[in-house]
């Protein structure tokens, strides 16, 4: 009897606590039911036009600087399409891929989401993205999206099909201190010889000023790829025999010279610099030049404030061959998930975001390049020095494009796990550029062979 009373008491206490917690959470539960589950929750069909539907939209790079602009676009879309409600879910950029991966593993994807071009091959391999070819071919504005952007998306998928419509392009850029260049009477480097000479000329150790800043930490290999191929003029990552071109003699020659900048024409702290640190070096007046894409425009504008005219953008210098090579594969776009029950509504929202008006609003506010041809020709692009400089380089018929093999499932992991620490060893003089590039080439060739074997 005594024991009975003890157990009853314990059980009662547990039940009481759980009941308390359940009561406390009641309001949240109700509020959140449309959250992660809403993508699959509705039973409405797009075939019944009058019925309101809710689609879930995941923004892969949310934050206080960007989210309000998406919210404004959603407001405009909902006003134009009263029967479609868009539920916005912002993902922090650093964890967005992980969140998508968990959602895919748990079959809990959104209807539509922003995805980086780098993710396409992985998502297609997992079979979760909707093939957009049919939708795209019947879209009245299909010819208005830059062919290079669409081709870039197609080339990122293992089967060459279209799974993502890019609404923002991003290209590697040489940001420079226009005021320092002017004071020194130096023009913006058009060749790599000029680039190295400029980095040296603008280094003034007495003033703690350096000509350049190298990204040695997180994200370094992507930028290194862009500048290597910009130098060599090579436009194919693999030759016809499946040999990687990354250890081409021209790249070895460049890297030998490039590494000499470290510690002399760049701060020694560069070896661990990720995005934030690298941008801070440029924005705080330590370095005269910085290689990064258009995405850092907002940070520069914020840091320079009223002195925004002091920094400008230029494409990377021309290759040894005399033409520019720009690296693609950095587009951001929108994809629809196969699991969506409202694919037509999601497509409507996608085309709205990819339209000229939306691209104008979006890209102007985030400072990146649109993919809509009319938007590229609009007045705001013509008055945005950084976008204009890059769009002119891209429009130049002599410019060639390198698409890195981002379709290889191992591409990202090799970049992160092999190349980033490897490049740091090169900067610190522990590994020679030749050995590093050979290791890089071998890793990529192995990844390609594995990928090709998977089809046999």
């Amino acid at each position, binding site marked *: 009897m005594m024991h009975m009373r003890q157990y009853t008491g314990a059980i009662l206490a*547990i039940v009481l606590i759980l009941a308390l917690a359940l009561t406390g959470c009641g309001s949240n*539960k109700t509020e959140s039911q449309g*959250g992660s589950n809403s993508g699959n929750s509705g039973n409405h069909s797009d075939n019944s036009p009058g019925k309101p539907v809710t689609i879930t939209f995941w923004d892969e790079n949310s934050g*206080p600087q*960007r989210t309000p602009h998406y919210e404004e676009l959603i407001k405009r879309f909902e006003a134009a399409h009263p029967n479609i409600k868009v539920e916005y879910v912002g993902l922090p950029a650093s964890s967005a891929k992980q969140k998508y991966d968990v959602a895919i*593993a*748990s079959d809990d994807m959104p209807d539509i989401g922003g995805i980086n071009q780098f993710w396409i091959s992985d998502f297609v391999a997992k079979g979760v993205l909707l093939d957009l070819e049919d939708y795209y071919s019947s879209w009245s504005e299909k010819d208005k999206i830059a062919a290079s952007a669409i081709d870039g998306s197609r080339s990122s998928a293992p089967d060459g099909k279209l799974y993502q419509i890019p609404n923002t392009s991003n290209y590697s850029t040489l940001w420079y201190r226009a005021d320092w260049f002017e004071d020194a009477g130096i023009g913006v480097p058009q060749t790599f010889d000029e680039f190295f000479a400029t980095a040296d000329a603008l280094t003034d150790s007495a003033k703690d000023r350096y000509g350049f800043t190298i990204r040695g930490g997180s994200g370094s290999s992507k930028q290194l790829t862009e500048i290597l191929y910009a130098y060599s003029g090579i436009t194919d990552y693999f030759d016809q025999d499946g040999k990687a071109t990354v250890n081409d003699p021209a790249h070895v020659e460049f890297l030998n010279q490039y590494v000499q900048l470290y510690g002399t024409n760049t701060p020694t702290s560069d070896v661990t610099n990720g995005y934030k640190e690298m941008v801070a070096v440029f924005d705080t007046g330590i370095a005269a030049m910085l290689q990064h894409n258009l995405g850092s425009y907002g940070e520069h504008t914020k840091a320079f404030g009223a002195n925004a005219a002091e920094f400008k953008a230029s494409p990377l210098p021309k290759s040894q061959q005399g033409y520019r090579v720009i690296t693609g594969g950095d587009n951001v776009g929108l994809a629809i998930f196969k699991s969506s029950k409202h694919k037509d509504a999601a497509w409507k929202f996608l085309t709205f975001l990819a339209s000229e008006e939306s691209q104008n609003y979006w890209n102007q506010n985030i400072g990146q390049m649109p993919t809509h041809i009319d938007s590229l020709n609009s007045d705001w692009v013509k008055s945005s020095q950084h976008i204009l400089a890059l769009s002119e380089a891209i429009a130049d018929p002599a410019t060639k494009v390198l698409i890195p093999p981002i379709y290889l499932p191992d591409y990202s992991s090799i970049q992160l796990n092999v190349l980033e620490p490897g490049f740091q060893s090169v900067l610190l003089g522990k590994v020679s550029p030749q050995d590093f590039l050979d290791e890089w080439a071998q890793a990529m060739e192995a990844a390609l062979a594995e990928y090709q074997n998977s089809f046999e």
Partner: protein
Amino acid sequence: MNHKLEKYCSLFLYRYLPLTLLLLFIMVPFYWTLNTSLKLEGDITKMPIEYWPAPATFDNFIMSWNNVGFSLFFRNSMFIALSTVLIVLVLSILAGYAISRFSFKGKNAFMLLLLCTQFVPGAMLLIPLFMQFKAMQLTGTHLGLIITYSAFQLPFNAILMSGFIRGIPEALEEAAEVDGCNRLQAIFHVILPILIPGLVATSVFTFIGAWNEFLFALMFITKKSLFTLPVGLSYMQGEFDINYGALAAGSVIALVPVVILFSYVQKYLVQGLGAGAVKG
């Protein structure tokens, strides 16, 4: 005199100097966060570095609290952490009591099992747990997080609590039972008041664990209105845009409860850890 001077010198050299350096090493990041949170946006990355906010501003705090949503994130985190503490506290008292007072079949195996749960990385359980919770409609709710955090915190705290309870003489309970209490009443009337240091230690560990947890909160919650503080902080960092001022202000806000807790319960905490370590 010389001997005294030598004593002071060695005290300074071997005790106060290393301690001061250690303190500086620990405090500088906190100071830097506070300093950044009080600076104007343009001054944060200005060179030369400003070691003191001049002029100081509370705009970052106002912005992160009102505009970014930290007031809501704070409330969410507080609700989740306190609920977890409540559940863990009661269950760990009961489990700890059972472990320390009863001998039952498989007790050692059970203790080993509790310990083994600590070796399983949370990330490994993410997807199975997500699928379970999805089936139970618990994803996107605070309840899902509370259950997860309680489950993760309970084994360690049960062991910790058993150490405390073992330190209380059984004779006290027997005396209470002689006076007419049943066992549960004896626990509440006799054990609990003596157990206060243990309760405080358990509460603080649980609170901090739930307060700081990021991965599950990020994966389970998708609505901004339900974000917890760590998720809110990561939301402040875009791929290319980082609002350093508001981020620092948000970090200071997130630190406040933890610092207050630590400063008030430090003595219980050390005692708690010690008890758990030796007797657990």
